[in-house]
């Protein structure tokens, strides 16, 4: 009698593929003999869209790349365009970016924690983490008017000043939040079933992680100390001294722990940033006009007819001299890179998004082979993949 193999499609419409990922698995009983990841179900042509839109029009779209941490995409694109156009961002705006990005990191990790536990079969942590995430999302809503797609950063700064009392609320949240993390730890960290399900499962070795270009918490859980915030600082990160947690096991449990440590670290960063944020008039939040200083009428930046008012919708838009730039930002999932090649017109010649989830999805089959079917779900959850970011 021939033992039949089961060829199973996991996804695209599956409760725990975090979007529309398709995994094609060869199962032998419960064991994974072979597995293949197929992506592209959420491909929206983000890079093609950049060709037909000018820079201001493209900016709101980039939030959609990683919808759980929209600020990072916007930040990397803004930093790229600012580097190309040589715009200096005011200090207060940089601090606001810093605080919102770190808050965004926490909210993204919180959502990850909830869904990861849901994948493992525990329903309650989702609701507890969403309770805290709701506080952050409410803060963002009061700041930007949006809960998910913020569109708050603009070239040269941020769109508007912080509302009254916003920083106080953030400070209160920061004081409150570590005790909430302790609460999750009480529920999860020592749980024997959780340990059984995660310890030694999906071990991503240091070499493999580097080979596959894994970044962010997943890489740091495998024992490599690489954090863009620390190693290639952007914005005002070089003014802050902070710890980059690193663990050596590289299994699902280490990936869980590293994210909890990162949340604690982010809280400290936010608290220090709030203590140091400079005050100032709200009109100083963004540069309204780029000025290269030559003041010649034919200059694309200083000439009378092409002055850029970044706050208003400008039909002409921002014209940027042809150059290229490659900005890396540490998003909540890892290294989020934005490559922009400008060509002197008001729209980019090529925009390329390098996203951490893309690499994480690539390594997924490697980690799953030989494991049990239930491990696939656990590993997929622990890698923190956001599918819109994979497909772009």
């Amino acid at each position, binding site marked *: 009698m021939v033992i039949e193999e*089961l060829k199973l499609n996991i996804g695209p419409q599956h409760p725990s593929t975090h979007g529309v990922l398709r995994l094609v698995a060869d199962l032998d009983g419960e064991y994974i003999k072979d597995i293949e990841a197929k992506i592209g179900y959420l491909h929206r042509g983000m890079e093609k869209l950049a060709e037909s839109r000018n820079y201001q029009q493209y900016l709101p779209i980039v939030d959609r790349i990683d919808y759980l941490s929209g600020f990072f995409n916007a930040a990397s694109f803004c930093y790229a365009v600012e580097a190309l156009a040589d715009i200096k961002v005011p200090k207060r705006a940089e601090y606001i970016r810093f605080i919102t990005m770190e808050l965004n990191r926490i909210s993204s990790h919180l959502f990850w924690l909830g869904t990861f536990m849901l994948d493992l079969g525990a329903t309650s942590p989702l609701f507890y983490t969403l309770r805290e995430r709701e506080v952050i999302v409410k803060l963002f809503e009061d700041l930007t008017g949006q809960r998910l797609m913020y569109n708050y950063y603009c070239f040269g700064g941020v769109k508007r000043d912080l509302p009254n009392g916003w920083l106080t609320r953030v400070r209160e949240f920061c004081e409150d939040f570590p005790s909430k993390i302790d609460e999750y730890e009480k529920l999860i960290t020592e749980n024997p079933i959780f340990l059984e399900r995660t310890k030694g499962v999906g071990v991503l070795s240091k070499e493999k992680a580097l080979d596959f270009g894994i970044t962010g918490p997943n890489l740091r859980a495998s024992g490599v100390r690489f954090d863009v915030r620390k190693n290639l600082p952007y914005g005002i990160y070089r003014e802050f001294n902070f710890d980059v947690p690193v663990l050596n096991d590289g299994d699902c449990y280490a990936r869980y722990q590293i994210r909890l440590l990162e949340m604690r670290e982010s809280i400290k960063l936010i608290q220090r940033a709030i203590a140091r944020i400079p005050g100032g008039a709200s009109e100083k939040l963004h540069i309204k006009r780029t000025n290269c200083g030559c003041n010649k009428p034919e200059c694309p930046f200083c000439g009378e007819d092409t002055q850029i008012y970044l706050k208003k919708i400008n039909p002409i838009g921002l014209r940027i001299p042809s150059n290229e730039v490659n900005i890396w930002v540490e998003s909540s999932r890892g290294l989020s890179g934005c490559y922009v090649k400008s060509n002197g017109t008001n729209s980019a010649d090529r925009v390329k998004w390098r996203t951490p989830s893309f690499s994480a999805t690539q390594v997924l089959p490697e980690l799953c082979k030989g494991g049990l079917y239930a491990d696939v779900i656990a590993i997929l959850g622990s890698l923190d993949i956001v599918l819109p970011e994979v497909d772009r």
Partner: protein
Amino acid sequence: MFLGGFGAFFAFAVFSVMFAVAALVVSFILAPKAPSENKKSTYECGMQPKGEGQINFSVKYYMFAILFIIFEIEALFLFPWAVIFKKLGLFALIEAFIFVFVLLLGLVYACQKDLLEWRR
């Protein structure tokens, strides 16, 4: 009494089946019927299923099944012993212990032979 004890048991079994069937019949009468090809297709995450869903069970399940039958029958032998345990005295106690011990030896043997492992 008519239908006492086991009679009632069988009556209950028959009635329970009838109850379930009746629920299905009522729903069959009440429920709308609008079948379509898409609706009737087998769910596999939105993809066309490849191959049959009705595959052979892995042989490991049969191993568990055989072990199960052995232990379940042994447990059944112990039931009458447990009921009149008091009357049987020390001899039956020791005998039952030997019985259980042999059973556990079997379990240890199965464990040694890796019958209880899922991995090959």
